[in-house]
């Protein structure tokens, strides 16, 4: 006789950037239902933002996410610039685009590494983080920081990219291409990775539409959306690149989208560096008039949405922020149900919710409330499954 067991993942804290709590209901190995509880890290930034003046807010919203830290300030300045209807100097548009694409590369490499770790491919983990490191060095060279670059301001950017830095950045990109080739080969051609990721955690196109998911999660389900193409900002309409779309909706498709997107990011940065005109990098904004504005940015995880309303004072009266994971995490209700516990780690991680701290996963027996497994046991379970597959294929 099967009995339902609750597998709590979280709240401090599962595969997410913020503490979140997934309550998996399992029968045997199968996940039959999932309950998602969030709010453990709610910091009230929307309210806080109403008490800061317009120039302080980029620093505040930069701290929403530590991984895609430029996406929020970028979306915010887009919203304010939409509100006051100004166009900013062209060089600033290019610099913003370069920073945002560098961020996409480092974020996707981070995800790839962790995904590799969860399914027992620690070499992928080590290698992808090793190649992420030079990207962070480039951030340090250009902005002075490895993260929280503080580049965005209303009307432009705060720092220029120096001419002598351009060849170094280009060299780093050149070195990165063979690394991405390697990952592409390692993931696409490996029968074990295929067996672990293909057909797992599927989100169909219709489900993706209903749950309004964004970013690679949507593009892997055959939905051709990308704010960079659809509602161009920065310099995205001035360079040529492609939107990567896959049809299958499983974790393999999500992985493929992210790997192929790194090539496009490299292409965008290279072209931006070549096309970037000389000139001023910011426009002095004196007053913010009353009105409302909406800014969007395609963050590494999808559309990041900011709405700003001003009454003519130096502070906004409403600032709504919607991070991409807000839509994507909710869709786990579909993707994880019907799968097995050993696939749960990678399925919940597949939307790239800026995870860490998986040691918070535990398996509890519903009746005795006794701990059966903790997070490391679950990762081990996932890794053992890969090992078994690997041996059976040999």
């Amino acid at each position: 006789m099967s009995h339902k067991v609750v597998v709590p993942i979280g709240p401090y804290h599962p595969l997410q950037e913020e503490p979140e709590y997934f309550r998996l209901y399992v029968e045997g190995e199968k996940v039959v239902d999932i309950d998602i509880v969030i709010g453990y890290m709610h910091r009230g930034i929307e309210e806080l933002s109403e008490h800061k003046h317009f120039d302080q807010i980029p620093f505040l919203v930069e701290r929403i996410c530590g991984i895609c830290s430029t996406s929020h300030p970028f979306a915010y300045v887009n919203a304010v610039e939409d509100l006051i209807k100004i166009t900013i100097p062209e060089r600033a548009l290019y610099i913003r685009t370069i920073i945002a694409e560098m961020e996409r590369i480092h974020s996707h490499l981070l995800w790839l590494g962790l995904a590799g770790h969860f399914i027992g491919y620690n070499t992928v983990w080590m290698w992808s983080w090793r190649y992420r490191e030079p990207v962070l060095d480039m951030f340090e060279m250009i902005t002075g920081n490895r993260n929280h670059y503080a580049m965005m301001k209303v009307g432009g950017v705060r720092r220029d990219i120096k001419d002598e830095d351009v060849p170094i950045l280009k060299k780093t990109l050149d070195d990165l291409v063979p690394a991405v080739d390697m990952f592409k080969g390692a993931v696409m051609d490996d029968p074990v990775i295929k067996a672990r990721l293909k057909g797992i955690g599927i989100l169909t196109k219709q489900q993706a539409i209903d749950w309004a998911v964004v970013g690679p999660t949507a593009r892997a389900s055959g939905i051709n959306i990308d704010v960079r193409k659809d509602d161009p900002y920065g310099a995205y309409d001035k360079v040529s690149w492609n939107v990567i779309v896959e049809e299958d909706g499983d974790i393999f498709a999500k992985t493929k989208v992210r790997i192929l997107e790194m090539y496009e990011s490299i292409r965008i940065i290279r072209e931006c560096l070549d096309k970037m005109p000389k000139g001023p990098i910011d426009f002095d904004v004196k007053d913010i008039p009353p009105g409302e504005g909406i800014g969007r940015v395609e963050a590494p995880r999808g559309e990041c949405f900011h709405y700003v309303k001003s009454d003519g004072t130096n502070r906004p009266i409403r600032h709504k922020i919607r991070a991409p994971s807000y839509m994507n995490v909710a869709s786990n209700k579909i993707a994880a149900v019907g799968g097995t516990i050993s696939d749960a780690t990678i399925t919940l991680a597949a939307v790239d919710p800026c995870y860490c701290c998986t040691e918070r996963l535990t398996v509890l027996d519903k009746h005795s409330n006794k701990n059966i497994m903790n997070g490391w046991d679950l990762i081990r379970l996932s890794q053992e499954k890969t090992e078994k597959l690997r041996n059976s294929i040999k």
Partner: protein
Amino acid sequence: MFIADEIKERLDEKIIDWYQHSSRRIYFSVEPKYIQAVAGLLFRDLGLRFSIATGQDTPQGLELLYHFSFDKTGEIISVRVLIKDKKKPEIDSLAPLFPAAEWIEREMWEMLGINFIGHPNLKRLLLADEWPEGKHPLRHEDES
């Protein structure tokens, strides 16, 4: 053709007011009673994507902005409704139409105290369990 033009045609007398802020940002005001019909038309019939909703406490009442994105042209259609009754604010839930609205309605329910009629799972999303009942952080009168 911009989707905003088609929306204007299809909604017709349901629109109280509209304005185009910039080339791809269009705002429509409708009566709260029409919200399900309007959202259904935008999401199901015209294929817009639900981006998010913004709730706000204004002197005139509680204002909700439902942001829909039309990705073929990059337009954002924001549907504005004003709930004048601040004592017992309520509006039809959109969650039965599309699950993407579930979380944001729970958030607006706890932050502004708006009751979403027909929501399948109206419970706290972000606020802590210890947070006092009936206190809504984004309501301005609560500050005094």
